């Protein structure tokens, strides 16, 4: 292995950062749903895949202008997430966590099959939101990577403000901490939970649209969700800043790991998760208190 130049290191850092941001977008969705309902949505990666395919439908197959297609995709995916909770997951309220685990796992498999039946099992290209690269000296960044970083930052700040300052955000925090008490306050718990699922599907779709130009659209692109899952666990599952931090950590270490150990390409994320869990079982930024059930 030859030594890396500073420019190489910088390049890898930025690539890792934007990759980590994509993981974050998926992980934020995971954590939102988990915090609100204590349910883990194993189909989150497939939500992202669906987002990419719906975008492909609007932008490539129907030939709509890019940003109009994006807008429509986000609306469709929001409705999709809302519907999944309202029609399927909500019925399992009160069942053991295990039931929901199996359900979302099955949902993921079903979504892959449905997407394959509608759009086919091949690889499809989706144009990048902003084509071309940004060159700063020796470092080259695709504009879509930069957009990924900006969007993640924007969503993180937006969510913080939403939970801090808006009435509905506060109600979502309350229902995540004590669902029954939230009901007693007159908070429309069921509707807000579905809205949370919608938000998580929209963030997944954002990740899908940004990832599509890099990895192509295919039914198996949802497997990246596992890395987001690892990132969320590293961050202590249940904390959004933690999930973002965990995903960035995984995203940034990944390219270096792949270069250092090319034979073990792809497992860096899980080794990071393993190491973090050994040293800090509660995750990087776990909420200190055990949640009162």
């Amino acid at each position, binding site marked *: 292995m030859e030594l890396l130049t500073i420019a190489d290191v910088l390049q890898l850092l930025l690539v890792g950062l934007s990759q980590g941001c994509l993981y974050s977008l998926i992980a934020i969705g995971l954590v939102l749903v988990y915090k609100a309902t204590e349910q883990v949505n194993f189909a989150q990666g497939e939500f992202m895949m669906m987002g990419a395919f719906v975008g492909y439908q609007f932008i490539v197959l129907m030939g709509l202008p890019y940003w109009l297609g994006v807008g429509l995709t986000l609306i469709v995916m929001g409705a999709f997430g809302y519907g999944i909770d309202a029609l399927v997951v909500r019925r399992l309220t009160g069942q053991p966590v295990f039931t929901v685990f199996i359900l979302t796992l099955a949902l993921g498999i079903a979504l892959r099959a449905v997407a394959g039946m509608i759009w086919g099992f091949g690889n499809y290209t989706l144009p990048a939101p902003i084509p071309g690269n940004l060159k700063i000296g020796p470092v080259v960044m695709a504009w879509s990577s930069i957009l990924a970083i900006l969007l993640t930052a924007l969503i993180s700040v937006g969510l913080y403000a939403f939970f801090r300052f808006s009435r509905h955000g506060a109600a979502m*925090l309350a229902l995540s901490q004590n669902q029954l008490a939230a009901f007693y*306050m*007159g908070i429309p718990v069921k509707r807000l939970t579905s809205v949370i699922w919608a938000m998580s599907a929209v963030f997944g779709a954002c990740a899908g649209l940004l990832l599509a130009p890099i990895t192509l659209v295919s039914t198996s692109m949802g497997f990246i969700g596992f890395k987001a899952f690892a990132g969320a666990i590293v961050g202590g599952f249940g904390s959004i800043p933690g999930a973002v931090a965990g995903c960035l950590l995984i995203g940034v270490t990944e390219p270096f790991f792949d270069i250092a150990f090319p034979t073990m390409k792809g497992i860096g994320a899980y080794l990071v998760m393993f190491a973090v869990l050994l040293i800090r079982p509660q995750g990087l930024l776990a909420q200190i208190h055990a949640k009162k059930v």
Partner: protein
Amino acid sequence: MSDVLTLSNVETMYGRVMAIRGVSLKVTEGSIVTIMGSNGAGKTTILKTISGALDPFKGRIAFERAEIAGLDPDVVARRGIAHSPEGREVFPLLSVRDNLMMGAYTRRDRDEVARDMEKVLGWFPVLRDFLEKSAIYLSGGQQQMVALGRAFMQRPRLMLLDEPSLGLSPRLIQEIFAIICRMNGDEGVTMLLVEQNANVALPVSDFGYVLETGRIVMEGPRDVLLASDDIREFYLGIKGEAARGDRRWKVKKTWR
């Protein structure tokens, strides 16, 4: 005075167990009504059935003449019933202020909400020092104050209070009940109270019901119940001069 709440023949199942078996009761506007009973009698189940956390298997629940049986708890809350649940159930990671404000979630009248907040802090001055602290750091008594204040912030026309004395010191119980009386007297909130501690609850109530294994076995105005021998012995722990107590003690001794 009209009846705010009427239950007729309500039966509720907990899984396959029938927890309340045909309960009928009434709460008159402006009054405090207490349901007494020992562990497992079904007191909490009655409140949960009223507020919609459990759906009744049978029977009718009328709140201000409208049927509310089977509605979701958030809908019932918006109709004007506040439920302060057993074990306080505060939002652990929200600050005391946010906990109280959650009570006012459905209200739009900001000025009134601010005034009610001041009222609550006036009743429970201790809370003022902890306004920005997470509710989880509060003592049991302070959490009970938050739960009560939060229920009041809903400006309910009926308040359901589940064991407000649970796990509190006798002095705190006195304090809490004094506030409950003021909410009723000064603010005109009608209350349905569930208590094991009949000693504090019965004297402040207007009417009482005694629940045993899911059935109402006795009911009456406060003074009638206070004068009843059975109530005095079993719920108030006042021994009459009757030989009954002695007799039992003797039996126990020989049995040993």
